[in-house]
């Protein structure tokens, strides 16, 4: 990370709200990508909650250089929490459904993602979109590396199975 960003983090930690405003610019695309990938239609709610959690706990960040991985952990946690809350409100979607006509690829992929558990989606986002290793994804999700491996395997297998149906 450039030293300029570290200086911005330190200024924000000391109460400079213009620096907080700059950090939102820095983190918003990144947080938004994680939250949209995991919380799907509730990505904006998740991103807003994640930004609040990040800004409120900014003083706890000891190493400004670690801003992104630290924010990633918070964004992932908030996105999973938002997705679970929404799933609880809406009722669990069916485990399997008949494969729709493949007239709209984006809609079908989204359908498949919506039927996954938020934790499975989180593993997919961290591994396949963010490019994290299994160990890094395990640290973000606070689970064992083997859990990441099995969730990823199940998520990919399920995706493949329903795609081929």
């Amino acid at each position, binding site marked *: 990370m450039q030293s300029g960003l570290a200086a911005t983090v330190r200024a924000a930690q000391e*109460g*400079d*709200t*213009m620096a*907080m*405003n700059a950090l*939102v*610019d820095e983190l*918003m*695309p990144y947080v*938004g990508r994680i939250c949209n990938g995991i919380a799907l239609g509730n990505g*904006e709610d998740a*991103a*807003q909650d994640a*930004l*609040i959690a990040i*800004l*409120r706990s*900014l003083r706890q960040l000891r190493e400004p250089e670690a801003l992104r991985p630290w924010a990633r952990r918070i964004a992932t946690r908030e996105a999973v929490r938002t997705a679970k809350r929404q799933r609880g409100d809406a009722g669990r979607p069916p485990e399997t459904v008949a494969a729709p006509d493949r007239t709209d690829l984006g809609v079908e992929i989204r359908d498949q993602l919506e039927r996954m558990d938020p934790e499975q989606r989180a593993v997919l986002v961290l591994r396949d979109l963010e490019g994290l290793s299994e160990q890094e994804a395990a640290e973000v999700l606070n689970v064992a590396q083997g859990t990441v491996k099995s969730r990823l395997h199940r998520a990919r297998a399920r995706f493949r199975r329903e795609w081929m149906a």
Partner: protein
Amino acid sequence: MIDPIRRLHALAASIPGAAVAEGVLDAPFDAVWATVSDLEHAGGIEILVKDPRITERRPDPQTGGERIRLEYKARPIMKREVLDVDLRPTGWCFMQSQLGIAAMAAVPEGERTRFAHLEAVRLPGRRLIGPMLKAKMALVGELRRFERQAQERARRQE
């Protein structure tokens, strides 16, 4: 990405003592945002600001907006204050001085505009001052002041 209103609420939740007023103004976005952007006439809306004057203005390529330095006299003590302003055409304005913080956010809502306004002070006891700022915003009717000025601006442009 989150819209400017959500951004304002995220910052408000993170700034101790921040007061927020939000509502839908009966005026189009362009007129509302032109009113916000007319910083040298902010005194007609914000009663704590007297004689605002832009002393520096430069484009900000990163945001597509402008970075502005605004000097004014802060009522009631009439102390000369300098505000650093981040003003963007996308409906985001954030301002900070030694004494206080203000932000304004807007998104189009049909022919009308959803608008939010944040105020906070950077002084000891700011958590206690927050409710007073909220009361001041309501008493002065700042949202309605923004709305009236935006409506007048829209009429002039017709």
